[in-house]
């Protein structure tokens, strides 16, 4: 029997068993271990599928009127593997974190099923199950908090919006095909207008799941409010499925398309990347920051996907392969480091009770393991060598750079802008994660909570360590997963060489050389210094002092220069409120300063919609005034109109 089939079946069985067990024995260990095992089985299934063991399964009896069919191929396998990997870390973490919930393994299961779906109905049902379970998890643990309620509402509505969009898109597609299985859809011959409709509708839906601007508003609300292992699953695994959907529909089912599709994807990706990271750079809430960084990274992935589509449409399969490789590798990388970061943020929350960066600091002493692991994640996320994301961003830039010479005018404009957006994103990511790590973990504690932090239990540490291991492996030997994502776009184990274009990178050797250089420098310094011991000394406080934690730079002040630079873009809201003395208005009793950086896209785009909806609701009430005459009148006038119509038309 096919190994992918066996392991995938095992994953399904394990998830169901865990869910049942969690109801019978509501213990964290049971749920966590079960989820981790489910994830491991999923990982195995994904790896098997990627290495060529695909399988299909049709279950006509399930899902009335539609039937269910699954096919796990290489593309789906990749996403199954990523989801599985994230679930392993999150599951291990959950053995000592959060409440025991039967929904957790079901959520993982739904995410494993989505990439395996082989028909429109199956995809939609798995998609909705995934949304449902994640929604339950978001509101499950802290349901009495107002933020959670609000986040849950946003999430539920926006995810449903995305769902309806996907539903309509795929239904239009299926209506032009003999059946609704993916195999039948591939055969369908669509007119350009229809395929454009399908593409735009599904793009909207999948993009909203991936947190792409302007459909991202739910993400920085829901991801931070969920329990951290759930945040990790959502931010590292669930958002990927938006990318999966886009790739599946855009490339596999629709078979590519005209250039404007992909320019649109590219533009959305670039916009999301910059917007997301800009918001993250201004953010002072650790988990919200991570959520916004998810928007950024998915934006980068979409830049890759868009570039891949563009190159395909321009007849350049080599670069298309390269861009695809970059996008998919970034998906994998992002999954690894975002898992780690969210789990670590959860550890911070667990250890201190706060996730406000302005109140954190000094955790490196009280929570050394968490600090070290978060550092690994931050390095990975800031796309600096030898971090994880550097390799994928390098690939992305290579694809964009090489795409320039033989291209049309649209590409000649799009690609430099894309490079600039990626570059700006990379730079701002550095700011963001320097802030997150430097302000959150280094320096002195800024609050009582941070000062009294406690290192987290071993289960949580183990979960983080697994994710960190993933990050390190991906950073040093991306060639282990590159064949899976890139086909033949790159060769080489230690040194990646691009096929078809010049370019090579060796993350392992680079790291090795860096380490050697550090050792050499350290040895050199030891050789030349006169005194080796360090004298303990007060911090230089200009002779005054003592220097209190209040004098430290906070996350807000850290981001202030950047906020000034981009104030036309982000439009921060400043509110200075001066209370004067009663006697004289020249004497000031109190000054209150408030600053917030609201999401501008949200304010411009969502606020009018919300206002219009509210107005609609108010206007709607006049339909039901309570007057029985009015109610009967509806019928009477309709009857008269209908009769008149009947009399006139015959």
């Amino acid at each position, binding site marked *: 029997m096919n190994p992918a089939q066996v392991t995938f079946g095992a994953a399904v069985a394990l998830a169901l068993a865990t869910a049942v067990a969690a109801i019978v024995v509501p213990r964290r260990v049971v749920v966590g271990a079960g989820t981790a095992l489910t994830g491991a089985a999923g990982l195995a299934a994904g790896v098997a599928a990627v290495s060529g063991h695909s399988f299909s399964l049709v279950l006509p009896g399930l899902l009335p009127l539609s039937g269910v069919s699954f096919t796990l191929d290489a593309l789906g396998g990749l996403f199954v593997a990523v989801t599985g990997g994230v679930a392993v870390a999150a599951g291990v973490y959950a053995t000592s974190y959060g409440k025991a919930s039967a929904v957790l393994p079901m959520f993982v299961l739904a995410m494993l099923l989505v990439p395996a779906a082989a028909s429109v109905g199956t995809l939609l049902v798995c998609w909705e199950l995934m949304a449902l379970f994640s929604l339950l998890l978001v509101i499950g643990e802290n349901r009495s908090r107002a933020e959670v309620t609000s986040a849950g509402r946003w999430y539920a509505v926006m995810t449903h919006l995305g769902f309806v969009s996907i*539903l309509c898109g795929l239904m239009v597609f299926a209506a032009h095909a003999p059946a609704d299985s993916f195999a039948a859809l591939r055969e369908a011959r669509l007119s350009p207008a229809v395929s454009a409709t399908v593409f735009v509708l599904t793009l909207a839906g999948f993009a909203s799941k991936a947190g792409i601007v302007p459909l991202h508003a739910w993400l920085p609300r829901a991801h931070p409010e969920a329990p951290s292992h759930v945040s990790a699953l959502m931010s590292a695994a669930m958002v990927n499925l938006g990318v999966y959907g886009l790739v599946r529909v855009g490339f596999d089912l629709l078979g590519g398309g005209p250039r404007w599709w992909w320019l649109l994807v590219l533009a959305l990706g670039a916009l999301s990347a910059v917007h997301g990271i800009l918001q993250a750079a201004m953010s002072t809430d650790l988990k919200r920051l991570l959520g916004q960084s998810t928007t950024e990274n998915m934006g980068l992935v979409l830049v890759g996907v868009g570039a891949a589509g563009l190159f395909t449409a321009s007849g350049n399969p080599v670069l298309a392969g390269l861009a695809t490789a970059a996008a998919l590798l970034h998906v994998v990388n992002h999954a690894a480091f975002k898992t780690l970061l969210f789990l670590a943020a959860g550890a911070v929350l667990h250890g201190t009770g706060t996730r406000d960066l302005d109140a954190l600091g000094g955790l490196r002493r009280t929570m050394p393991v968490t600090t070290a692991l978060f550092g690994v994640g931050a390095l990975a996320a800031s796309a600096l060598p030898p971090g994880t994301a550097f390799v994928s961003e390098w690939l992305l830039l290579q694809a964009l750079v090489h795409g320039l010479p033989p291209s049309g005018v649209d590409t000649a404009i799009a690609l430099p802008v894309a490079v600039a957006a990626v570059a700006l994103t990379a730079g701002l990511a550095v700011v963001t994660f320097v802030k997150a790590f430097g302000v959150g973990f280094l320096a002195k504690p800024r609050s009582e909570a941070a000062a009294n932090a406690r290192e987290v239990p071993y289960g949580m540490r183990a979960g983080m360590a697994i994710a960190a291991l993933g990050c390190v492996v991906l950073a040093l030997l991306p060639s282990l997963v590159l064949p899976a994502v890139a086909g033949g776009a790159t060769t080489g184990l230690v040194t990646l060489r691009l096929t078809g274009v010049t370019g090579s990178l060796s993350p392992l050797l680079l790291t090795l050389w860096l380490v050697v250089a550090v050792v050499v420098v350290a040895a050199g310094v030891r050789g030349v210094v006169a005194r080796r011991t360090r004298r303990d000394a007060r911090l230089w406080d200009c002779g005054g002092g003592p220097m209190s934690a209040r004098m430290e730079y906070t996350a807000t002040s850290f981001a202030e220069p950047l906020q000034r630079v981009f104030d036309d873009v982000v439009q921060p809201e400043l509110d200075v409120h001066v209370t004067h003395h009663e006697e004289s208005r020249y004497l000031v009793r109190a000054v209150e300063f408030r600053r917030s950086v609201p999401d501008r896209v949200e304010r411009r785009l969502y606020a009018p919609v919300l206002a219009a909806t509210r107005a609609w609701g108010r206007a709607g009430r006049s339909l*039901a005034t309570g007057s029985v005459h009015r109610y009967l009148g509806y*019928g009477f006038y309709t009857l008269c109109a209908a009769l008149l119509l009947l009399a006139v038309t015959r």
Partner: protein
Amino acid sequence: MTILLLPLLVPLLGAAGYAVFGWRRATVWLGTASASVMLASSIAIAAGDLPRTASAGLVRVDALSAFMLLVIGAVGLLATAASPAHLRTEIAAGRASTRTAARHSLLVQLFLAAMTLAVTAADLGVLWVAIEATTIVTAFLVGQRRTRAAVEAAWKYVVICSAGIALALMGTIVLNHASVHSGHEAGLDLAGLAAAASGLDPAVTRIAVVLLLLGFGTKAGLAPLHAWLPDAHSQAPAPVSALMSGVLLSVAFYAILRVKVIADVALGTGFTRAVLVVMALASLAIAASLLLGIRDYKRMLAYSSIEHLGLVALGAAIGTPLALAAALLHVAGHGLAKGVLFLGSGRILQATGTSRIDGVRGLLASRPALAGSFGAGVLALIGLPPFSLFASELGIARAGFAAGMGWFTAAAFALVLVIAAALVTRTSRMLLGPPQEPATGSVPMTLVAGLAVCAALGVAIGPLSPLLHDAASLLVVTR
């Protein structure tokens, strides 16, 4: 005695039982027992050969009737199983006496009987009589509490429904006119009419169909004469609301489906499709407009019923086998989910004393099991898997786009989205947040059971599948 009459006679016997013995210890579970027998006999009927007739051709059960019988039986069982607890609480709270309880139980039995008669009637006239009978029977159930609101609701209910249903009577007579002059001997016999429909005069049939659709549409909660529904459903006692919303609307829609078969043969599929699409979209739009600003959770559920009947109407308008099967499945799923929700809302009302959404906070913390089932029910209503409404909505969408009605379907689903947003927002306000009181409450088994069945139907319908497809194929007209 043929088994076909059993679902009709059993509730009548139950009613007689309550009439004779009143509300006492022995009769508390009589209603539940009768509903169980109804369901059991419905299952037996559905499992047998169909169609079958009885009582000199006045009663006929085909696949569609059998399916509707199952829905009535299932939701009836759900509602009657929850009745004793409901009534006991009401009596304990002094809002009802044992006489009220007895009358309630009696009327509920008659209500069930009337609905059973409606779906088993072979004659359009009898069908009309049965549906009008449901209005009369439920009028006092709606006004049971005798508060100002209840009396007002009952008045509106009876007046609007009677006026609407009078239009259906007029339509029936016009159709009869056409039938008599078509040269066939069909009269108002549904099967006969459907067979002989091609001979009906189109001009007359058009008038008849419009009147019938408007008339039965009133009872089915479709626009434009939908306005009684939120009032009546919100004021009726919970088990009655469950029955009214869960099955009565569908029973009225059953009549529309019967008319549609005849009309499609006589006029081609375009005519009813146009009328039904307009009614469906209007209903959805009205439900959406009013749900956006809704302040009362029982009315919220009622408007959601308008929405779901609108979806069913859309399914019927699409008219392909898949769409009709989906519409029927939707009827079943909606019946169960809405039944559960109304029963749950009744419990919430009894627990909190208010039906205003603002008045209920943090229910999930104070009554986790009840709030959980209520929340799950709302999730079912907005069409999330694994509940069967997902499968049926998916089917309607698929059929709609495949039948070239993509724009209407897309518009409908856009409205469904707005409604889902409104439902989620309101429900989350009720369920989430800090608790108002310490946690209490037991697991409401009826609700859980109803939801479980709804979910099971969404996963696989197994043996129901042939019945559903037979029923759908009865309604499909190829012309």
